């Protein structure tokens, strides 16, 4: 790959470029870096673009956000509105709300920037979650990428923080009530609740400090953390090199794909502009967060159908789904489990399990090797099923978070719907798990069948003895390799309970737990086709053979 080596400078422009390169290199040795980076290989797959979307929407957030800060006034100080909007004339509101109206209606393009910023935030959150799902379902979190999974997980939490702090800044009725809900959840925490609430709001709710504090968090603290962690995230992607899907010539010891320069520079660079363009179009055409319809925050006002941004809906849903009678008074102190469980415990456990998942799975596999070939989700049925179960749980909470809308849609009473969801939140994830596992294993069996018997061609051949048979075309090497190059892991056995001295071994219980977990993961499995099996199947293909199918998994045999 020598086609990027700079030729000796000839023309004027080339001379200047060469001169600049020389100037920089003599001061930074950027030449060596460029040599390393320019032809770095990245594998190609649509699902690898999800992380890119997150990255690019974050850049759009930074750009549009900087413009918004030029006009936003982070202050709760009351003013009486006398701007251009007729419906708001004479109404008392905070400077934060007033400046939001002003930048929307009096600054040309201001409304566009607000809407671009908000749409970018929604897309940022959505792309992070789907990116995370792709990492999960393909097993890209396995060694050596566990740490990058944690970095990514932290980015996900930070993206929620970024969204929530930004959403609250305009000081409108909707976001104000959102903050009050958060305040209520915080106060439910044992012992420290009231103090944490005071610490956050600078005293009693709503106080005067919160908007300026949220502003600093939103424009400085959170973006700086995100920026730093994105740098670390991408550094690790470069250092560890990207994973790749299984395919001919792709191993755990190489990366097959296109070079960063020029193909990825063009594709990924171009993709940034596409993402930016699409977000601009959304901002231009779809109204979002019209705060002038909600009005300035007043702690006594609420509008029906209050909804947070979609990425906070699951918490709202958890709060809604909980029956109220779980509040206890112990020795005169109030423990509100009806709020603590949905507001703190459930999100805590859910996110905790998510953060630790790479290690949980490693206990089951006992795998210590580096894994750079991605799993096809069907080849890890239990992981895939767990992921779908978790998503199902999440979706039930999101739906419950908009139960008023769902109830309206299906003409149900909200109460009945909530009772249904109370059952569904336990039952549906289990069903999803069972169903997904079956489907995944079914797909594995289908793969086996395909490998053993080839593609159906639809061509029917009649043999001399009058028998009809459909001609099957064997898979080519590449197609077959994708379907057979995986390992169906087997459950681990715990080491014996007693050590050589006949004494019960330390750590035996832990081993037993890991073995049980391993059984849960790998008890049921579908082995890939082996060459011997394939050979056998091909022998059976002789049209006269009347023998049984080689394996019970095979539903259709070639003889009829």
């Amino acid at each position, binding site marked *: 790959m020598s086609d990027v080596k700079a030729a000796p400078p000839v023309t004027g422009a080339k001379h200047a470029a060469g001169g600049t390169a020389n100037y920089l290199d003599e001061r930074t040795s950027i030449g060596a870096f460029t040599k390393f980076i320019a032809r770095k290989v990245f594998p190609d797959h649509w699902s690898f673009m999800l992380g890119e979307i997150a990255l690019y929407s974050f850049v759009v957030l930074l750009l549009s956000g900087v413009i918004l800060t030029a006009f936003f006034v982070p202050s709760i100080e009351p003013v009486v509105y006398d701007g251009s909007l007729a419906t708001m004339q004479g109404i008392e509101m905070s400077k934060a709300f007033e400046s939001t109206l002003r930048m929307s209606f009096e600054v040309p393009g201001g409304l566009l920037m607000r809407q671009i910023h908000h749409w970018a935030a929604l897309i940022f959150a959505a792309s992070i979650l789907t990116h995370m799902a792709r990492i999960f379902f393909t097993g890209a979190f396995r060694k050596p990428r566990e740490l990058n999974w944690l970095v990514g997980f932290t980015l996900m939490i930070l993206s929620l923080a970024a969204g929530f702090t930004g959403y609250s800044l305009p000081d409108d009725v909707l976001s104000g009530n959102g903050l009050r809900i958060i305040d209520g959840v915080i106060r439910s925490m044992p012992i420290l609740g009231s103090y944490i609430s005071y610490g956050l709001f600078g005293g009693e709710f709503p106080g005067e400090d919160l908007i300026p504090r949220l502003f600093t968090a939103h424009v400085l603290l959170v973006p700086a953390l995100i920026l730093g962690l994105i740098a670390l995230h991408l550094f690790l992607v470069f250092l560890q090199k990207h994973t790749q899907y299984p395919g001919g010539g792709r*191993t755990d010891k190489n990366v097959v794909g296109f070079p960063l320069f020029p193909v990825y520079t063009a594709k990924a660079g171009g993709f940034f502009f596409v993402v930016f363009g699409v977000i601009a179009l959304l901002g231009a055409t779809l109204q979002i967060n019209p705060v002038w319809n909600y009005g300035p925050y007043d702690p006594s006002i609420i509008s029906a159908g209050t909804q947070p941004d979609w990425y906070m809906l699951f918490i709202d849903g958890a709060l809604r789904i909980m029956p109220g009678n779980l509040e206890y008074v112990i020795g005169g102190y109030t423990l509100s489990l009806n709020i603590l469980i949905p507001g703190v415990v459930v999100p805590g456990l859910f996110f905790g399990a998510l953060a630790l998942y790479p290690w949980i799975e490693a206990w089951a596999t006992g795998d210590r090797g580096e894994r750079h070939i991605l799993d096809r989700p069907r080849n890890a049925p239990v992981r895939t099923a767990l992921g779908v179960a978790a998503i199902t749980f999440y979706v039930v909470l999101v739906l419950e978070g908009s139960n008023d809308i769902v109830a309206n849609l299906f003409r149900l009473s909200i109460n009945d719907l909530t009772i249904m969801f109370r059952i569904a939140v336990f039952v549906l994830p289990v069903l999803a798990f069972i169903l997904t596992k079956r489907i995944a294993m079914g797909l594995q069996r289908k793969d086996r069948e395909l490998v053993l018997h080839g593609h159906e061609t639809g061509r029917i051949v009649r043999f001399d003895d009058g028998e009809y048979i459909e001609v099957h075309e064997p898979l080519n090497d590449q197609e077959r390799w994708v379907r057979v190059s995986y390992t169906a892991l087997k459950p681990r056995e715990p080491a014996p309970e007693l050590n050589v001295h006949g004494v019960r071994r330390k750590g035996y219980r832990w081993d037993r737990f890991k073995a049980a977990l391993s059984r849960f993961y790998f008890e049921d499995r579908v082995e890939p086709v082996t060459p011997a099996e394939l050979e056998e199947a091909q022998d059976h293909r002789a049209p006269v053979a009347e023998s049984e199918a080689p394996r019970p998994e095979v539903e259709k045999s070639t003889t009829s």
Partner: protein
Amino acid sequence: MSTDDVTPGGGIVEDEFTDPGIPTHHRPRRADVDPKAAKRAELQVAALFGVSVLGTVIAIWAYLTADVGGDNIAGVRNTTMFLGVGLFLAMIGIGTGAIHWAKTLMRDHDIVEERHHLRSSEEARAGAVDNLKQGARDSGIGIGRRGLLKGSLVTALAIAPLSVLVPAVGNLGGDWNVSKLRNTMWRRGMRLAKDPGGGLIKAADVTIGSVFQVIPDGLNELEEGKLEEKAKAVVLLIRMNPEDLKVQPGREDWSFDGIVAYSKICTHVGCPVALYEQQTHHLLCPCHQSTFDVADGAKVVFGPANRPLPQLPIAVDDEGYIIAKDDFNEPIGPSYWERLK
């Protein structure tokens, strides 16, 4: 490229297919073989970049002709639209142009890069340990005699942040007087005022079935803490047929002829409750749908709240105005740990 060292996903299996290697049959694209197609692709890419230039022109034109302010809502809408569409074209032109270029004209052969174990070599690891040991010896810690140095340094480092954190965190909560959560502004004899508007309320003016949002008379004149007080003191005043009202034991004189006053702040996590249904006397909090029965002590009939809305005891003064008889007898709003202390 060697392929025999492939061990997909784990242990070596004897009986294994062999990796067929990177697909060799590479199907050439039109532009690879047909110079005319290549020329066409080039023109398409250039045209897409041209779209971008056009978009920039539209955006600048939209900005220069923007007519916003002075209650011109249509002007705001048009500016948002045209500026945004211009920006969209400016971006999408570059983006699709670059991608089209990469897909049609750039060399599209896979290349292979070897991976190396992330683990450092044994020498490097040994060297690292040696260097650290050497450094520790140089510092004197390594010899084991310098426990005092180590201990005192660790202690100093551990507590030094407190010099910043204690004042920083200490200032966050204002006066930290959390007992303010216990009381509201309501006092004996304070008149009830409509919100918004501030008009006082005569019992005779409250018709059966009506609902008023009410604040203490004088709240709007507060110099300080207006919103904080309002967030606690806001009340719903509701009149129903006295026969429908189940008077709660001990609260016989808290209502007046079917008029009751309950805190508007939900006992779940503190949203203002809003939707009152006359027939059922149910009051619904739109945040998480806790439902309170106003006819029966505002007890919870559905939803995630646990406690009834606190009741404000009311009476009528000499001039016929509704007044509070006292503050609420419990903290309003969501539960918290020391609520009953």
